[in-house]
């Protein structure tokens, strides 16, 4: 499959599309979510853990704009607090994944030779089994589960994928004339990697990073839905949806609002990533 992916990276003829208002709307939405996650303590929100038994399963109203759950907690404030887990896991594990996978991928594509062959074979072997099974397996044994452990496990699981994307992207740049020219001029490897290769693979890297964050957040949601993420009562989008399972009939809002929050966040990330990719003229790589 290696050949296929390398072929997929050929550049399209020049045609820059403007980013468009929808792009900026998505950026704004992500920024708003991150702002909410960081300042949830300071914002005038109700306590996400406070159980108000006189308001159980009430629908959206002025007092609770998204309603309350089956033990009287405010759904809106739980969603804002819940974004913390998703955002922390999404960004945190991608920091680990890119921190390890990207340098290795660049180095392998630049050096080639035996180093590349061994590393790539190893990464392809790791890629062969699905990240979801690996993360479920490790998290089911490695108790008690915390945000840190989840970030670590998903981050490490994403390394082979990041490695593959960055390596493929670097390969297509590393044979360009300007890189060879730099080599002939006697530039140091470090300089070539940082000044010549890095800026040229950055666009692909960034758009993959965004789509990667979205994938990780969906994965954390799935884990939380299966009860394998942070322990309750800490709210997260996934475990709120998990809690709604038993009261679907009485209180559908408890499922609908966190689902909407999660989907809109993922959609925005995917949209930004996709737009950036077509803006920088890279044809669709199977990410």
């Amino acid at each position, binding site marked *: 499959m290696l050949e296929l992916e390398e072929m997929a990276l050929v550049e399209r003829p020049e045609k820059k599309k403007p980013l468009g208002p929808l792009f900026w709307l998505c950026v704004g939405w992500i920024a708003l979510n991150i702002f909410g996650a960081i300042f949830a303590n300071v914002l005038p929100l109700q306590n996400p853990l406070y159980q108000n038994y006189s308001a159980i399963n009430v629908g959206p109203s002025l007092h609770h704009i998204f309603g309350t759950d089956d033990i009287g907690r405010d759904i809106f404030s739980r969603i804002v607090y819940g974004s913390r887990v998703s955002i922390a896991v999404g960004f945190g594990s991608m920091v680990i994944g890119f921190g390890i996978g990207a340098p290795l991928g660049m180095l392998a594509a630049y050096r080639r030779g035996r180093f590349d062959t061994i590393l790539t074979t190893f990464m392809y072997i790791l890629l062969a089994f*699905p990240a979801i099974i690996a993360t479920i397996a490790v998290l*089911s044994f490695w108790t008690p589960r915390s945000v840190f452990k989840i970030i670590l496990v998903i981050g490490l699981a994403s390394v082979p994928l990041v490695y593959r994307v960055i390596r493929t992207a670097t390969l297509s740049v590393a044979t360009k004339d300007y890189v060879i020219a730099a080599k002939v001029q006697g530039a140091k490897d470090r300089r070539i990697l940082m000044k010549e290769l890095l800026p040229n693979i950055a666009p692909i890297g960034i758009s993959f990073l965004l789509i990667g964050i979205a994938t990780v957040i969906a994965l954390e949601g*799935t884990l939380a839905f299966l009860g394998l993420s942070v322990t309750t009562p800490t709210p997260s989008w996934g475990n709120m949806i998990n809690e709604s399972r038993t009261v679907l*009939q009485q209180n559908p809002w408890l499922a609908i609002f966190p689902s909407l929050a999660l989907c809109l966040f993922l959609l925005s990330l995917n949209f930004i990533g996709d737009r950036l990719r077509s803006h920088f003229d890279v044809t669709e790589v199977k990410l």
Partner: protein
Amino acid sequence: MLRYVIRRILMLIGIVFIISVGSFFLIHLLPGNITAVIEGPGASPENQAKLFKLLGLNRPIYEQYFVWIGNILHGNLGTSFISQTPVVTTIGNALPIDLEIMFLSQILAFAVAIPMAMRSARKPDGVIDRFFSAGSFTMLSVPSFIVIILLVLFVSIKLGIPHTGPSSYVSLRGDWIGNLESMALPAITLAAGSFVVYFRVLRSDLIATLQEEFITMARSKGLSQRRIMWRHAFRPSSVALLGAAGVNIGGLLAGGFVVQYLLNIPGLGYTLIAAINTDDYLLVQGIVLVVSVGVVLINFFFDFIINIVDPRISRE
């Protein structure tokens, strides 16, 4: 071709070996003493020592691995400490359900994705293409656990269709219509996840293929649009589709776990989550091993089919 197959098989053996080592060491991730975890708090030191010996934990680690892998090669994954049933039996009962869900969902996904991609590719950037593309892009951002929750909300709660809600699974042996009803939502959920991927991959490949000269040739011969699509353009465009299908199996598994968990369908995913919640570690280990090896084999199988469709790949 033969060299390619041999190389792939060697790689396959390597992957299975790494999976087996990984699953073997999982149990060492458990915090503290394994015997204490298995026997629960308050177990006497004598009992713990007994179990320690019984499990062969006093032997060197590589020896433990070889005993363990030897048992597995004889089809023995151990007997659960919790339910006292052999792990192989439990997995054997659950696996057919997963296979049925996957089979149904893939048929559904291809049946929807292929005609849609052909319709889209006929006029790229036309109204229909834009609509399909935007729709599939949105679907890409909806994880399967949300699809199934929404389906349950509307189909089984609002519309009240029988056998579709949680805990209403009907086994295939009993009544097959009821079984199909209870498999409908899981199959649709998994199909929704797959068809988005298939549609996008096939659409972009078809658009590229339709610009080839042999298509212009077929057009100028006066062949019908339908014949050109199915007989001329489809096969060269289906390589990436098959590749996507192979890779997608991992996603299907996750989706399968989620639907089984929500609807209490006793497949592997449901069994796995139940095993995790009851600390049935041997069962978890067994399922992880079987599922990972299964995924690898399916990927191998798809690589093989791709080679038959497009023999150029194995020749490099």
